[in-house]
């Protein structure tokens, strides 16, 4: 309310019994409401702190157990793949992937990104292809230090993007987009598509939808 309107209102209040009564009532109600303020019990504060700590450690224990199970599963899968599949034929998803690629796939399947520290760089802006950032974190994927970003579009399609200073290893079954060394490549493993490129920065992208990776490839001009 402007000063002038405020003055007019106050002048009106002094002369109008109905409005004065209305304001006085509301002021009384406000005082009554404010009187209900309480301090949270100290025990509740401690409970919350303890709950957060126990959640943190149980989540860590769960992740360790899960990771151990995943390592066993990946190892068994790789052994089975080596034993049963002839090279060059069959399901390429059964082929053992380099550590960082395997880890990236596991993280994508579980909707996780490394969260050991804050990201060093801003998330690449993918609004142009309809994707917005839903998470960010920095850490290691396999043995590659990365900034990881998760994206989602309005259709609910997910995209996970890892950006690193170092190039990523080539996935088993990768198909080169260009000729020559350092070519961007695409691959598919366990139903998840991968796109890797050195330009405009070393990146590894994962999505369940191959069209998303095609769009990303064009949008970032990786080739």
């Amino acid at each position, binding site marked *: 309310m402007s000063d002038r309107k405020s003055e007019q209102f106050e002048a009106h209040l002094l002369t109008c019994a109905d409005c004065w009564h*209305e304001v*006085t*009532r*509301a*002021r*009384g*109600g*406000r*005082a*009554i*409401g*404010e*009187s*209900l*303020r*309480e*301090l*949270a*019990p100290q025990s*509740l*504060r401690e*409970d*919350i*702190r303890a*709950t*957060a*700590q126990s*959640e*943190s*450690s149980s989540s860590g224990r769960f992740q360790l157990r899960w990771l151990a199970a995943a390592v066993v599963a990946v190892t068994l899968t790789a052994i089975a793949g080596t034993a049963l599949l002839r090279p060059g034929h069959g399901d390429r998803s059964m082929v053992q992937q380099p550590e960082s690629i395997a880890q990236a796939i596991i993280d994508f399947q579980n909707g996780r990104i490394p*969260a050991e*520290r804050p990201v060093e760089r801003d998330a690449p802006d993918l609004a142009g292809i309809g994707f917005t950032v*839903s*998470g*960010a*974190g920095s850490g290691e994927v396999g043995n590659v230090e990365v900034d990881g970003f998760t994206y989602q579009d309005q259709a609910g399609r997910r995209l996970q993007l890892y950006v690193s200073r170092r190039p990523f290893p080539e996935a088993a079954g990768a198909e080169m987009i260009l000729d020559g060394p350092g070519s961007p490549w695409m691959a598919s493993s366990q139903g998840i598509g991968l796109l890797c490129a050195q330009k405009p920065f070393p990146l590894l992208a994962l999505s369940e939808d191959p069209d998303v990776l095609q769009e990303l490839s064009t949008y970032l001009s990786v080739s």
Partner: protein
Amino acid sequence: MTTSDFDFLQRTLPCMDLVYNLARRCTTHHQDAEDLVQETYLRALKSWRSHRRPDKVEAWLATICLNVVRSDYRRRSRRPAEQLQAEAGLDFRSGDHTEDTALGSIDKSAVHRALWELPDEQRIAVVLVDICGFTSSETARITRSPRGTVLSRVHRGRKALAETTTLRQVYKHET
């Protein structure tokens, strides 16, 4: 505890009084309020771990708390049975106005009951503005209502609160 969780507690624990006050006025018993606060913080922590970093932690927590109330507690909550524990009398005389004086000895349980008799929207608006200290604009965002609607609800709620509580006191004194 991870750095992220530590950061979460550092940012959110100072808001606990606010969340607790909101929870107290959205539930009928102390224990339910404490459960609601715990649930609110758990959901907030999960969201925090998914890298959600709100600009205004207070409003964020209040929104989560109200979402929990809507999703979980509405089914279970009951209007308070008229067995609320009597709480200490209050003294908030703020001047020599007769109404202020009349309101000066009201006990908290009467106010609590009066608050629960308000329609939900008015009660939430009064709680957010007068008890939690949010501005009308912040309340509008939290409740996803136009600011004008919030102002109207707060005004009606305050008036009803004053009238109901004063009537109860008058009745109590007369009997």
